[in-house]
Protein backbone atom coordinates (compact mmCIF):
# COMPACT_ATOMS: atom_id res chain seq x y z
CA UNK A 1 0.00 0.00 0.00
CA UNK A 2 1.06 3.56 -0.48
CA UNK A 3 1.66 5.03 2.92
CA UNK A 4 0.13 8.52 2.95
CA UNK A 5 3.22 9.65 4.87
CA UNK A 6 5.26 9.01 1.72
CA UNK A 7 3.17 11.55 -0.10
CA UNK A 8 4.00 14.33 2.29
CA UNK A 9 7.04 16.57 2.29
CA UNK A 10 7.58 16.81 6.02
CA UNK A 11 10.24 14.17 6.68
CA UNK A 12 13.80 15.48 7.09
CA UNK A 13 15.51 14.79 3.78
CA UNK A 14 18.95 13.17 3.80
CA UNK A 15 21.57 14.99 1.72
CA UNK A 16 24.76 13.12 0.80
CA UNK A 17 27.94 15.16 0.30
CA UNK A 18 30.67 13.45 -1.74
CA UNK A 19 33.86 15.54 -1.67
CA UNK A 20 37.50 14.69 -1.02
CA UNK A 21 38.12 17.92 0.87
CA UNK A 22 37.69 17.87 4.64
CA UNK A 23 37.26 21.65 4.46
CA UNK A 24 34.14 21.40 2.33
CA UNK A 25 32.59 18.83 4.69
CA UNK A 26 33.31 21.03 7.67
CA UNK A 27 31.98 24.13 5.95
CA UNK A 28 28.70 22.56 4.85
CA UNK A 29 28.23 20.84 8.20
CA UNK A 30 28.19 24.26 9.79
CA UNK A 31 26.39 26.15 7.05
CA UNK A 32 23.60 23.64 6.49
CA UNK A 33 22.68 23.42 10.17
CA UNK A 34 19.92 25.97 9.72
CA UNK A 35 18.33 23.88 6.95
CA UNK A 36 15.95 21.10 7.83
CA UNK A 37 18.13 18.45 6.26
CA UNK A 38 20.30 15.67 7.57
CA UNK A 39 23.76 15.84 6.00
CA UNK A 40 25.85 12.69 5.56
CA UNK A 41 29.26 12.56 3.92
CA UNK A 42 31.73 10.45 1.98
CA UNK A 43 35.23 11.40 0.83
CA UNK A 44 35.54 9.61 -2.49
CA UNK A 45 33.39 8.62 -5.44
CA UNK A 46 33.44 4.91 -4.79
CA UNK A 47 32.25 5.15 -1.18
CA UNK A 48 29.84 7.89 -2.17
CA UNK A 49 28.22 5.70 -4.80
CA UNK A 50 27.88 2.79 -2.39
CA UNK A 51 26.44 5.05 0.29
CA UNK A 52 23.90 6.42 -2.18
CA UNK A 53 22.75 2.91 -3.10
CA UNK A 54 22.44 1.98 0.55
CA UNK A 55 20.86 5.11 2.03
CA UNK A 56 18.95 6.49 -1.00
CA UNK A 57 19.41 10.15 -0.05
CA UNK A 58 17.00 12.81 -1.31
CA UNK A 59 19.84 14.81 -2.85
CA UNK A 60 23.53 14.36 -3.64
CA UNK A 61 26.16 17.11 -3.63
CA UNK A 62 28.98 15.78 -5.77
CA UNK A 63 32.49 17.20 -6.12
CA UNK A 64 34.00 16.88 -9.60
CA UNK A 65 37.66 16.91 -8.76
CA UNK A 66 38.43 13.85 -6.68
CA UNK A 67 41.22 11.30 -6.86
CA UNK A 68 40.52 7.62 -7.69
CA UNK A 69 36.94 7.95 -8.99
CA UNK A 70 36.18 11.49 -10.11
CA UNK A 71 32.83 13.26 -10.08
CA UNK A 72 31.89 12.51 -13.69
CA UNK A 73 32.63 8.83 -13.26
CA UNK A 74 30.60 8.80 -10.05
CA UNK A 75 27.72 10.67 -11.70
CA UNK A 76 27.70 8.17 -14.56
CA UNK A 77 27.58 5.26 -12.10
CA UNK A 78 24.76 6.89 -10.13
CA UNK A 79 22.70 7.43 -13.27
CA UNK A 80 23.25 3.85 -14.46
CA UNK A 81 22.14 2.27 -11.19
CA UNK A 82 18.37 1.80 -10.92
CA UNK A 83 18.36 2.56 -7.19
CA UNK A 84 20.08 5.94 -7.58
CA UNK A 85 19.23 7.15 -11.07
CA UNK A 86 16.34 9.36 -9.92
CA UNK A 87 18.24 11.04 -7.07
CA UNK A 88 18.97 14.65 -8.04
CA UNK A 89 22.67 15.52 -8.11
CA UNK A 90 24.14 19.01 -7.69
CA UNK A 91 27.70 19.09 -9.02
CA UNK A 92 30.25 21.14 -7.06
CA UNK A 93 33.30 22.25 -8.96
CA UNK A 94 36.40 24.31 -8.30
CA UNK A 95 36.56 25.03 -12.02
CA UNK A 96 34.19 27.46 -13.68
CA UNK A 97 34.34 25.56 -16.96
CA UNK A 98 31.57 25.61 -19.55
CA UNK A 99 32.67 22.25 -20.89
CA UNK A 100 32.38 20.72 -17.41
CA UNK A 101 28.92 22.22 -17.00
CA UNK A 102 27.74 20.79 -20.31
CA UNK A 103 29.16 17.37 -19.45
CA UNK A 104 27.58 17.44 -15.99
CA UNK A 105 24.13 18.35 -17.31
CA UNK A 106 24.40 15.82 -20.13
CA UNK A 107 25.18 13.13 -17.57
CA UNK A 108 22.04 14.06 -15.64
CA UNK A 109 23.10 16.61 -13.01
CA UNK A 110 20.28 18.87 -11.91
CA UNK A 111 22.50 21.85 -11.03
CA UNK A 112 26.12 23.02 -11.07
CA UNK A 113 27.74 25.20 -8.41
CA UNK A 114 31.24 26.65 -8.60
CA UNK A 115 33.52 26.70 -5.57
CA UNK A 116 34.14 28.79 -3.57
CA UNK A 117 30.39 28.87 -3.14
CA UNK A 118 28.27 31.62 -1.87
CA UNK A 119 26.55 29.79 0.97
CA UNK A 120 23.23 31.59 0.78
CA UNK A 121 23.01 30.68 -2.88
CA UNK A 122 23.98 27.05 -2.29
CA UNK A 123 21.36 26.74 0.43
CA UNK A 124 18.72 28.14 -1.91
CA UNK A 125 19.76 25.70 -4.64
CA UNK A 126 19.62 22.78 -2.20
CA UNK A 127 16.14 23.80 -1.08
CA UNK A 128 14.90 24.18 -4.62
CA UNK A 129 16.30 20.80 -5.72
CA UNK A 130 14.78 19.08 -2.70
CA UNK A 131 11.40 20.63 -3.34
CA UNK A 132 11.46 19.63 -6.98
CA UNK A 133 12.48 16.04 -6.25
CA UNK A 134 9.77 15.70 -3.58
CA UNK A 135 7.17 16.92 -6.05
CA UNK A 136 8.45 14.60 -8.78
CA UNK A 137 8.29 11.68 -6.39
CA UNK A 138 4.77 12.60 -5.38
CA UNK A 139 3.70 12.93 -8.99
CA UNK A 140 5.12 9.58 -9.99
CA UNK A 141 3.43 7.94 -7.01
CA UNK A 142 0.16 9.64 -7.79
CA UNK A 143 0.39 8.49 -11.38
CA UNK A 144 0.19 4.94 -10.02
CA UNK A 145 -2.81 5.56 -7.81
CA UNK A 146 -6.45 5.31 -8.80
CA UNK A 147 -8.10 8.53 -7.69
CA UNK A 148 -11.45 7.11 -6.54
CA UNK A 149 -10.40 3.97 -4.69
CA UNK A 150 -6.90 5.22 -3.74
CA UNK A 151 -5.63 1.76 -4.62
CA UNK A 152 -2.90 1.18 -7.18
CA UNK A 153 -4.21 1.51 -10.72
CA UNK A 154 -4.32 -1.00 -13.54
CA UNK A 155 -1.04 -0.04 -15.19
CA UNK A 156 0.78 -0.35 -11.87
CA UNK A 157 -0.80 -3.78 -11.42
CA UNK A 158 0.33 -4.96 -14.86
CA UNK A 159 3.98 -4.12 -14.10
CA UNK A 160 3.98 -5.25 -10.51
CA UNK A 161 2.24 -8.56 -11.13
CA UNK A 162 4.84 -9.44 -13.74
CA UNK A 163 7.58 -8.69 -11.20
CA UNK A 164 5.99 -10.77 -8.44
CA UNK A 165 5.33 -13.60 -10.90
CA UNK A 166 9.00 -13.64 -11.97
CA UNK A 167 10.15 -13.49 -8.36
CA UNK A 168 7.91 -16.38 -7.28
CA UNK A 169 9.19 -18.58 -10.11
CA UNK A 170 12.82 -17.65 -9.51
CA UNK A 171 12.75 -18.35 -5.78
CA UNK A 172 10.13 -21.10 -5.78
CA UNK A 173 7.95 -19.06 -3.42
CA UNK A 174 4.15 -19.10 -3.10
CA UNK A 175 2.10 -16.53 -5.00
CA UNK A 176 -1.65 -15.95 -5.26
CA UNK A 177 -3.89 -13.45 -6.94
CA UNK A 178 -7.55 -12.67 -6.43
CA UNK A 179 -9.98 -11.01 -8.83
CA UNK A 180 -12.94 -9.41 -7.08
CA UNK A 181 -16.12 -8.06 -8.57
CA UNK A 182 -19.00 -6.31 -6.80
CA UNK A 183 -22.31 -8.13 -7.24
CA UNK A 184 -25.05 -6.28 -9.15
CA UNK A 185 -23.11 -3.05 -8.93
CA UNK A 186 -24.91 -1.51 -11.89
CA UNK A 187 -28.18 -1.54 -9.97
CA UNK A 188 -26.62 0.58 -7.18
CA UNK A 189 -25.63 3.22 -9.71
CA UNK A 190 -29.03 3.01 -11.40
CA UNK A 191 -31.10 3.07 -8.22
CA UNK A 192 -29.13 5.35 -5.89
CA UNK A 193 -27.05 7.39 -8.33
CA UNK A 194 -23.39 7.44 -9.29
CA UNK A 195 -22.17 9.23 -6.13
CA UNK A 196 -23.56 6.30 -4.11
CA UNK A 197 -21.78 3.90 -6.47
CA UNK A 198 -18.52 5.82 -6.01
CA UNK A 199 -18.91 5.61 -2.24
CA UNK A 200 -19.26 1.83 -2.52
CA UNK A 201 -16.12 1.54 -4.68
CA UNK A 202 -14.12 3.63 -2.19
CA UNK A 203 -15.60 1.81 0.81
CA UNK A 204 -14.91 -1.69 -0.48
CA UNK A 205 -11.37 -0.61 -1.41
CA UNK A 206 -10.90 0.51 2.19
CA UNK A 207 -12.14 -2.83 3.54
CA UNK A 208 -9.71 -4.65 1.23
CA UNK A 209 -6.79 -2.48 2.40
CA UNK A 210 -7.69 -3.04 6.04
CA UNK A 211 -7.74 -6.82 5.60
CA UNK A 212 -4.50 -6.88 3.56
CA UNK A 213 -1.09 -7.39 5.09
CA UNK A 214 1.68 -4.94 4.24
CA UNK A 215 3.09 -7.29 1.60
CA UNK A 216 -0.21 -7.53 -0.31
CA UNK A 217 -0.83 -5.23 -3.26
CA UNK A 218 -4.42 -4.11 -3.81
CA UNK A 219 -5.28 -2.54 -7.15
CA UNK A 220 -8.37 -1.32 -8.95
CA UNK A 221 -8.62 -3.54 -12.00
CA UNK A 222 -11.49 -1.83 -13.80
CA UNK A 223 -14.93 -0.35 -13.06
CA UNK A 224 -16.16 -2.41 -10.10
CA UNK A 225 -13.34 -4.94 -10.26
CA UNK A 226 -10.38 -5.18 -7.91
CA UNK A 227 -7.32 -7.37 -8.01
CA UNK A 228 -5.14 -8.43 -5.12
CA UNK A 229 -1.56 -9.66 -5.51
CA UNK A 230 -0.54 -11.78 -2.54
CA UNK A 231 3.17 -12.65 -2.59
CA UNK A 232 4.39 -15.47 -0.34
CA UNK A 233 0.81 -16.66 0.01
CA UNK A 234 -0.62 -20.08 -0.84
CA UNK A 235 -4.11 -20.21 -2.42
CA UNK A 236 -5.49 -21.64 0.85
CA UNK A 237 -4.18 -18.67 2.86
CA UNK A 238 -5.35 -16.29 0.15
CA UNK A 239 -8.77 -17.86 0.51
CA UNK A 240 -8.87 -17.11 4.26
CA UNK A 241 -7.95 -13.47 3.67
CA UNK A 242 -10.40 -12.99 0.81
CA UNK A 243 -13.26 -14.63 2.65
CA UNK A 244 -12.82 -12.07 5.42
CA UNK A 245 -13.13 -9.33 2.80
CA UNK A 246 -16.30 -10.99 1.47
CA UNK A 247 -17.79 -11.25 4.96
CA UNK A 248 -17.02 -7.65 5.85
CA UNK A 249 -18.53 -6.37 2.60
CA UNK A 250 -21.73 -8.27 3.30
CA UNK A 251 -21.85 -6.98 6.89
CA UNK A 252 -21.32 -3.33 5.99
CA UNK A 253 -24.29 -0.94 6.17
CA UNK A 254 -24.18 1.91 3.66
CA UNK A 255 -25.50 5.30 4.75
CA UNK A 256 -26.92 6.14 1.34
CA UNK A 257 -28.81 2.83 1.00
CA UNK A 258 -28.97 1.11 4.39
CA UNK A 259 -31.48 -1.45 3.18
CA UNK A 260 -29.35 -2.54 0.24
CA UNK A 261 -26.22 -4.47 1.24
CA UNK A 262 -23.31 -4.85 -1.19
CA UNK A 263 -21.77 -8.23 -1.75
CA UNK A 264 -18.66 -9.30 -3.61
CA UNK A 265 -17.57 -12.36 -5.56
CA UNK A 266 -13.95 -13.41 -5.59
CA UNK A 267 -11.92 -15.80 -7.74
CA UNK A 268 -8.47 -16.87 -6.54
CA UNK A 269 -5.68 -18.78 -8.18
CA UNK A 270 -2.31 -19.44 -6.64
CA UNK A 271 0.75 -21.62 -6.41
CA UNK A 272 2.25 -22.95 -3.20
CA UNK A 273 5.56 -23.42 -4.98
CA UNK A 274 6.31 -20.75 -7.59
CA UNK A 275 8.76 -23.05 -9.33
CA UNK A 276 5.77 -25.12 -10.42
CA UNK A 277 4.12 -22.24 -12.32
CA UNK A 278 3.95 -23.26 -15.97
CA UNK A 279 1.56 -20.70 -17.40
CA UNK A 280 2.02 -17.07 -18.37
CA UNK A 281 0.98 -14.17 -16.10
CA UNK A 282 -1.98 -13.52 -18.42
CA UNK A 283 -3.09 -17.16 -18.16
CA UNK A 284 -2.85 -16.97 -14.39
CA UNK A 285 -5.21 -13.99 -14.39
CA UNK A 286 -7.51 -15.91 -16.70
CA UNK A 287 -7.66 -18.80 -14.23
CA UNK A 288 -8.59 -16.40 -11.43
CA UNK A 289 -11.21 -14.89 -13.72
CA UNK A 290 -12.66 -18.34 -14.37
CA UNK A 291 -13.06 -18.90 -10.62
CA UNK A 292 -14.70 -15.49 -10.36
CA UNK A 293 -17.06 -16.41 -13.19
CA UNK A 294 -17.95 -19.69 -11.45
CA UNK A 295 -18.58 -17.82 -8.20
CA UNK A 296 -20.94 -15.45 -10.01
CA UNK A 297 -22.69 -18.30 -11.78
CA UNK A 298 -23.26 -20.25 -8.58
CA UNK A 299 -25.04 -17.44 -6.79
CA UNK A 300 -22.52 -14.65 -6.01
CA UNK A 301 -21.31 -13.45 -2.57
CA UNK A 302 -18.83 -16.28 -2.87
CA UNK A 303 -15.08 -17.02 -2.90
CA UNK A 304 -13.65 -19.73 -5.12
CA UNK A 305 -9.98 -20.65 -4.96
CA UNK A 306 -7.97 -23.15 -6.90
CA UNK A 307 -4.39 -24.21 -7.22
CA UNK A 308 -2.68 -23.17 -10.42
CA UNK A 309 -2.58 -26.84 -11.48
CA UNK A 310 -6.35 -26.90 -11.44
CA UNK A 311 -6.95 -28.56 -8.07
CA UNK A 312 -9.83 -26.90 -6.31
CA UNK A 313 -8.81 -25.46 -2.95
CA UNK A 314 -11.94 -24.12 -1.40
CA UNK A 315 -15.34 -22.68 -2.05
CA UNK A 316 -17.21 -20.57 0.46
CA UNK A 317 -20.58 -19.01 0.28
CA UNK A 318 -22.51 -16.97 2.75
CA UNK A 319 -24.61 -19.24 4.91
Amino acid sequence: MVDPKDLQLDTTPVVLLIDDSQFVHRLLDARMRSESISLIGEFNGKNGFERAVEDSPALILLDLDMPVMDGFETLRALKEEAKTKDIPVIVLSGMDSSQDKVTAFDLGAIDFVTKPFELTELRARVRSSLKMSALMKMLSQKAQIDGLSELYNRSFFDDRFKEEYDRAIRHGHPLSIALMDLDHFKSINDTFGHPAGDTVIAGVAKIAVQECRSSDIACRYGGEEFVLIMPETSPADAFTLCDRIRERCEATTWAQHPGRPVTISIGIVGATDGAGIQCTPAAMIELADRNLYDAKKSGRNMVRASDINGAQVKIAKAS
Partner: protein
Amino acid sequence: MNAPDPNAFSLDINDSEDAELIEYFLGELPERVDAINQASSSDDVEQLGRLAHQLKGAAPGFGFPLIGSAAAKLEGSIRALDQSEEDVNLVRAEVENLISLCQSYISQSKNSH
Protein backbone atom coordinates in the same frame (compact mmCIF):
# COMPACT_ATOMS: atom_id res chain seq x y z
CA MET B 1 38.84 32.73 -13.30
CA ASN B 2 38.02 35.87 -11.29
CA ALA B 3 39.26 36.32 -7.76
CA PRO B 4 36.36 35.93 -5.35
CA ASP B 5 34.82 39.11 -4.03
CA PRO B 6 36.15 39.36 -0.45
CA ASN B 7 32.94 40.99 0.72
CA ALA B 8 30.86 38.04 -0.36
CA PHE B 9 32.73 35.84 2.10
CA SER B 10 33.41 38.05 5.05
CA LEU B 11 32.84 36.18 8.30
CA ASP B 12 32.02 37.67 11.65
CA ILE B 13 34.29 36.63 14.51
CA ASN B 14 31.51 37.58 16.97
CA ASP B 15 29.12 35.07 15.39
CA SER B 16 29.67 31.72 17.10
CA GLU B 17 29.24 29.65 13.94
CA ASP B 18 31.63 31.91 12.01
CA ALA B 19 34.14 31.87 14.86
CA GLU B 20 34.02 28.06 14.92
CA LEU B 21 34.81 27.90 11.19
CA ILE B 22 37.62 30.45 11.41
CA GLU B 23 39.17 28.57 14.31
CA TYR B 24 38.89 25.26 12.50
CA PHE B 25 40.52 26.65 9.38
CA LEU B 26 43.41 28.26 11.29
CA GLY B 27 43.90 25.00 13.17
CA GLU B 28 44.22 23.06 9.91
CA LEU B 29 46.37 25.63 8.17
CA PRO B 30 49.85 24.74 9.60
CA GLU B 31 49.42 21.18 8.34
CA ARG B 32 48.49 22.46 4.89
CA VAL B 33 51.48 24.79 4.82
CA ASP B 34 53.75 21.86 5.69
CA ALA B 35 52.20 19.82 2.90
CA ILE B 36 52.70 22.66 0.39
CA ASN B 37 56.31 23.08 1.51
CA GLN B 38 56.92 19.38 1.14
CA ALA B 39 55.31 19.14 -2.29
CA SER B 40 57.23 22.19 -3.44
CA SER B 41 60.64 21.00 -2.24
CA SER B 42 60.15 17.55 -3.75
CA ASP B 43 58.87 19.11 -7.02
CA ASP B 44 55.62 17.15 -6.73
CA VAL B 45 53.72 19.46 -9.06
CA GLU B 46 50.61 17.29 -9.12
CA GLN B 47 50.27 17.29 -5.33
CA LEU B 48 51.01 21.00 -5.23
CA GLY B 49 48.22 21.62 -7.73
CA ARG B 50 45.79 19.54 -5.69
CA LEU B 51 46.61 21.41 -2.46
CA ALA B 52 46.23 24.77 -4.19
CA HIS B 53 42.94 23.66 -5.76
CA GLN B 54 41.50 22.65 -2.39
CA LEU B 55 42.58 25.85 -0.68
CA LYS B 56 41.16 27.89 -3.53
CA GLY B 57 37.77 26.23 -3.13
CA ALA B 58 37.67 26.24 0.66
CA ALA B 59 39.47 29.29 2.08
CA PRO B 60 36.90 31.92 1.01
CA GLY B 61 34.09 30.00 2.70
CA PHE B 62 36.05 30.07 5.96
CA GLY B 63 36.56 33.82 5.72
CA PHE B 64 39.97 33.84 4.04
CA PRO B 65 39.38 35.08 0.49
CA LEU B 66 42.97 36.35 0.14
CA ILE B 67 44.32 32.85 0.72
CA GLY B 68 41.73 31.69 -1.81
CA SER B 69 42.98 34.08 -4.50
CA ALA B 70 46.66 33.34 -3.81
CA ALA B 71 45.88 29.63 -4.12
CA ALA B 72 43.87 30.24 -7.30
CA LYS B 73 46.83 32.09 -8.86
CA LEU B 74 49.15 29.25 -7.93
CA GLU B 75 46.81 26.66 -9.34
CA GLY B 76 46.49 28.64 -12.57
CA SER B 77 50.25 28.90 -12.96
CA ILE B 78 50.67 25.19 -12.32
CA ARG B 79 48.10 24.37 -14.99
CA ALA B 80 49.90 26.65 -17.46
CA LEU B 81 53.29 25.26 -16.49
CA ASP B 82 55.65 24.16 -19.22
CA GLN B 83 59.32 23.55 -18.54
CA SER B 84 60.48 27.12 -19.16
CA GLU B 85 62.67 28.69 -16.47
CA GLU B 86 60.30 31.63 -16.31
CA ASP B 87 57.22 29.53 -15.50
CA VAL B 88 59.00 27.49 -12.88
CA ASN B 89 60.15 30.69 -11.18
CA LEU B 90 56.62 32.06 -11.30
CA VAL B 91 55.27 28.94 -9.58
CA ARG B 92 58.01 29.18 -6.94
CA ALA B 93 57.16 32.83 -6.31
CA GLU B 94 53.49 32.04 -5.95
CA VAL B 95 54.20 29.19 -3.54
CA GLU B 96 56.26 31.64 -1.47
CA ASN B 97 53.49 34.20 -1.60
CA LEU B 98 50.80 31.71 -0.55
CA ILE B 99 52.89 30.32 2.28
CA SER B 100 53.85 33.70 3.71
CA LEU B 101 50.22 34.79 3.58
CA CYS B 102 49.19 31.67 5.48
CA GLN B 103 52.04 32.16 7.96
CA SER B 104 50.91 35.68 8.67
CA TYR B 105 47.40 34.50 9.52
CA ILE B 106 48.81 31.72 11.68
CA SER B 107 51.07 34.05 13.67
CA GLN B 108 48.31 36.65 13.99
CA SER B 109 46.04 34.06 15.55
CA LYS B 110 48.83 32.89 17.90
CA ASN B 111 49.46 36.46 19.04
CA SER B 112 45.82 37.06 19.72
CA HIS B 113 45.67 34.11 22.12
